[in-house]
């Protein structure tokens, strides 16, 4: 469904992505992990054409989206939940959701609103509250729900665990799991490798703008290199080279 091929992006004078290829099949849940500054956000932003590429392509259903405007990409069925939630703090939950459906006909917005509030009951309960008053977890749910208002076929998630307590992280990921089970395709980037790989089928490891590992999520979770670098399981042994 989404095929990023040999993508190069330079961002603020720095080579942020070098020859990156990543793909997601319809219905798949794929996680890309990497540390701070590895280029994860740049990858999602370049797929959405928020930052522009130097070379390479990103095919969405066979068409190169790096040549389209962001709003056209959204209209084609791709939505991004940005890092740090970025809800409109001074608008109500309801208004935030309506903003998500900004380009959709009113009847569809109404139907989608009903759908997402069924999916996230807490948003229905707090429809009239200011989004800024919500807890971090609730804001993340709102950000996801807002993205769903555009009726996407693929959801790009930037660091959904950021700044959330472990239990809340689990709650957010459980929601993503439910969404995935309804057929939504998910590409997620995360520093939190253990949770991101636990819920995904496949994964990639991005380091200094390059893919250095990939495979089934279970394979990466069991890998010593991943354990040392991303799961905080460093240990010393006398056989170390």
């Amino acid at each position: 469904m989404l095929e990023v091929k040999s993508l190069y992006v330079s961002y603020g004078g720095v080579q942020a992505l070098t020859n990156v290829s990543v793909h997601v099949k319809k219905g798949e849940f794929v996680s890309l992990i990497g540390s701070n500054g590895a280029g994860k956000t740049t990858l999602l932003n370049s797929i959405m054409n928020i930052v522009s590429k130097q070379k390479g392509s990103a095919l969405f259903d066979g068409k190169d989206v790096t040549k389209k405007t962001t709003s056209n990409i959204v209209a084609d069925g791709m939505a991004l939940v940005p890092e740090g939630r970025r809800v409109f703090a001074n608008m109500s939950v309801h208004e935030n959701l309506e903003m998500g459906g900004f380009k959709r006909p009113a009847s569809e917005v109404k139907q989608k609103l009903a759908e997402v509030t069924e999916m996230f009951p807490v948003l229905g309960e707090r429809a009239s509250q200011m989004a800024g008053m919500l807890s971090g977890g609730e804001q993340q749910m709102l950000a996801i729900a807002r993205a769903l208002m555009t009726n996407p076929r693929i959801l790009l998630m930037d660091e959904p665990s950021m700044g959330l307590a472990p239990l809340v992280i689990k709650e957010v990921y459980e929601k993503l799991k439910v969404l995935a089970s309804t057929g939504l395709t998910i590409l997620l980037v995360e520093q939190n490798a253990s949770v991101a790989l636990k819920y995904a089928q496949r994964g990639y490891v991005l380091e200094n703008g390059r893919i250095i590992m990939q495979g089934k999520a279970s394979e990466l979770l069991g890998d010593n290199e991943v354990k040392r670098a991303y799961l905080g399981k460093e240990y010393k042994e006398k056989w170390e080279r």
Partner: protein
Amino acid sequence: MGEIEVKYWHEEEERMDPAERKVFQLERLQTTVNRAYRKVDFYRRTFDKLGLKPDVISELADISKLPFTNKQDLRDNYPYGMFAVPLRDIVRIHSSSGTTGKPTVVGYTRNDLENWNNLVARLMTAGGVSKDDIVHVSFTYGLFTGGFGLHYGAETIGASVIPFSSGNTSRQLAIMQDYKSTTLVSTPSYALHIAETMEKMGINRNDLSLKYALLGSEPWGDKIREEVQDKLGVIATDNYGLSELIGPGISGECIYQKGLHINEDFFYPEIIDPLTLKPLPEGEWGELVLTTLKREAMPLLRYRTRDVTRLYREECPCGRTLIKMDKPQGRTDDMLIVNGVNVFPSQVEEALAQVQGVSPHYIIFVRKKGALDSIEIKVEVNEDIFFDEMKKQRELVENLTVQFQKILLLKPKVTLVTSQTLERFEGKAKRVVDERNS
């Protein structure tokens, strides 16, 4: 063969649309090159010397821009220089025998071992083996990859494994009889040896429960296959591997015996002209070059196998979409170049097999005739023909010439000699006399 039930081990991967598999191949190739450059000093030095960047691969075809890896490179980096992970991440070490020069060492991480088991499970499943089978392994265990490779592949499937190892054939046969082994894992020549021993011991194929034989680790042809299948009552399939890359598990035949399916999602195959080192298109014969796509402990880029084969895609009745290779027809080390045409002694053998009344003993002479090369093939024939009329001799020579020309793509001079006149060799026979530089 009766009714055939086709089984798969990794159905999704083995039957994947090749276009989709290419997406995986490119991603894995890019990752492998990134890792090799970052983690293996040998590759970093080689790339830097050539002024190559690891991002040189933006399409699969760009693989031709990468340098080759030779067996000598592994020897030069003996023992652990080619490893891309610290030793504490290595959980198994195998090695080649080292009869010619230093041995080569191969390391595996835990993920490598799991992948290896599954790749062997794929080819064993393709050869008919299931969890209900009793697999008798007659490969030598030890540093050689064959024994452990097939052993764990069979265990991964869930079959019952008998790790007999090699030697003591009459005892092997007794065990096979008593334990009702259904699958034999061995070299083709050992399978033949078992068949001969059966005859001596008066054991009939119906006294055994064998159904499948997975034969590998040396070249063999259809004649041996027919004999093994007939005498042991099995479906005999070939499998191919190289210890430098992983061991067995690179490719294997399915029960339809129509070429070896390469696990190309793990090993990217190319065919090159061994002289110009340029890649050759699908279907052409040349040297097989393999690049690992998923190996963690020891990524190898464009490893020159020295084995001569061809790659081709065709619809297989088993439904696998993996690219195929033919049984290797010799080694580039044995290759002759005559007027720019590649000639292998094995091709001469192939031609001889097509003609009645000749022995398999021959010698190829290559000479300079002015600017051009000429080739003469001396073939031993039955005495009788020399007493017969000249016409028969001439017919045989013509027949042989036609066969040679068809297979070698050039016309040799054919000379018949009486039997036992060509020199005999213990071990590796000398089949070629190249007089061009003398």
